[in-house]
């Protein structure tokens, strides 16, 4: 367990503490993943730097058409946010699916991304939204697409002992766009997804003009299916093309055999079903606008 615990009030102080501990200190936000890891001795730290008392990070904001979610914002806050429900339903749905109310009250969306688990519900939604993340160190501030953050299973390129993710950014959905997140799991609560899928579709009359299609966990990181996206681009909105896209996703997916999540064969079939559900729901939402 750790020897020291700091709750600084500014990002600058966080970076100073990290710097002075030379890799021995680590950032904690909600701690819903980190604390069980430390308790289970999967991770060792000498010092924790708690960022949840930094007021600047506890905001969901919109500037023009860009939505910003600060690193102090919990899953519950995202799930309940009118702004997110109206402008990025896919993320509100993903945030409501995480863990349990208790976990959602503590865990943060940015933390979910930093933790880099391949099935992290909100990360899957943020992939579909084309989100970017702001990473601040004493040397520089970088804005990086979330898709570029993954080094391996549960391994982010963000080094939380030296730098800090402060916010995620994405564009609010336009009137001709719809989104959806769907999940297959053993229960409705407190369970990891067998599979999840997030889509953002753009429609022009009865055709797709664009689609972003993401499924997980069928690869070491959320899988953005470029093949499915290519099939849907400029295609008619019809069961035929939706099914073609689903076949393409299954072609790219590489689900593992898993005692927890089911057989690879089963998940290969179900990933198609899930994607069809997500696309239909997203299309329905465009029509209802």
């Amino acid at each position, binding site marked *: 367990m750790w020897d020291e*615990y700091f709750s600084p009030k500014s990002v600058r102080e966080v970076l100073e503490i990290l710097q002075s501990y030379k890799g021995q200190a680590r950032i904690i936000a909600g701690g819903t993943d980190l604390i069980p890891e430390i308790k289970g001795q999967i991770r060792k730290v000498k010092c924790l730097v708690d960022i949840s008392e930094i007021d600047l990070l506890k905001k969901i904001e919109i500037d023009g058409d860009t939505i910003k979610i600060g690193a102090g914002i919990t899953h519950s806050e995202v799930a309940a946010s009118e702004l997110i429900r109206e402008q990025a339903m896919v993320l509100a749905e993903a945030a409501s699916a995480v863990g*349990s109310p208790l976990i959602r009250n*503590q865990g943060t969306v940015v933390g979910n991304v930093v933790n880099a688990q391949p099935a992290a519900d909100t990360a899957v939604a943020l992939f579909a939204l084309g989100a970017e993340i702001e990473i601040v160190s004493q040397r520089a501030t970088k804005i990086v697409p979330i898709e570029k953050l993954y080094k391996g299973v549960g391994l982010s390129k963000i080094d939380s002992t030296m730098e800090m993710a402060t916010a995620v950014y994405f564009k609010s959905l336009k009137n001709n766009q719809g989104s959806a997140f769907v999940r297959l799991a053993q229960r409705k609560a407190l369970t990891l997804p067998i599979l999840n899928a997030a889509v953002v579709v753009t429609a022009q009359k009865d055709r797709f003009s664009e689609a972003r299609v993401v499924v997980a966990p069928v690869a070491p990181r959320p899988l953005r299916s470029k093949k499915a996206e290519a099939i849907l681009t400029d295609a008619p909105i019809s069961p035929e093309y939706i099914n073609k896209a689903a076949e393409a996703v299954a072609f790219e997916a590489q689900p593992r055999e898993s005692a927890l999540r089911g057989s690879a064969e089963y998940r290969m079939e179900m990933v198609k079903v899930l994607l069809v559900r997500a696309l239909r729901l997203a299309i329905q939402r465009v029509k209802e606008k």
Partner: protein
Amino acid sequence: MTSKTFLRMIVNGEVVERAIRPSAMLLDILRYELGFTGVKEACGRGECGACTVLVDGIAISSCITPALKAMNKEIVTIEGLGSSAKLHPIQEAFIEHGAVQCGFCTPGMILSAKALLDKNLSPTEEEVKVGLSGNLCRCTGYVKIIEAVLSAAEKMRK
């Protein structure tokens, strides 16, 4: 050697000031140092809800919450929710509906129910189920628990 650090919080309306280990969990302080044994430890990893407490009105798992996160915050445990002379309406409803079997999950269930009803006094059955979905009952007495919460909500609306 780890040196102790200072924690101030308000527990069930009373200011508590203590020198604690920086790595203590909120559960450790509430249950083992302050004697609020209504805060139960079971899974120890935020999966069962037995350690639920309210922090500034929000239900959280105290077993995975560093105690220092509670600095200057208001904590409510089941002991702070009414007295033996005058129970909270949710507690009364749990008794009336037989929603307590072994009792181990009960404090967490009631506190999650309180957090829910504080925000929404007219929840649907589905909303109650979602609101309590982080609290496990190994006696599987869920039906009576849900009935109790709905009935408490009805009483509290009056």
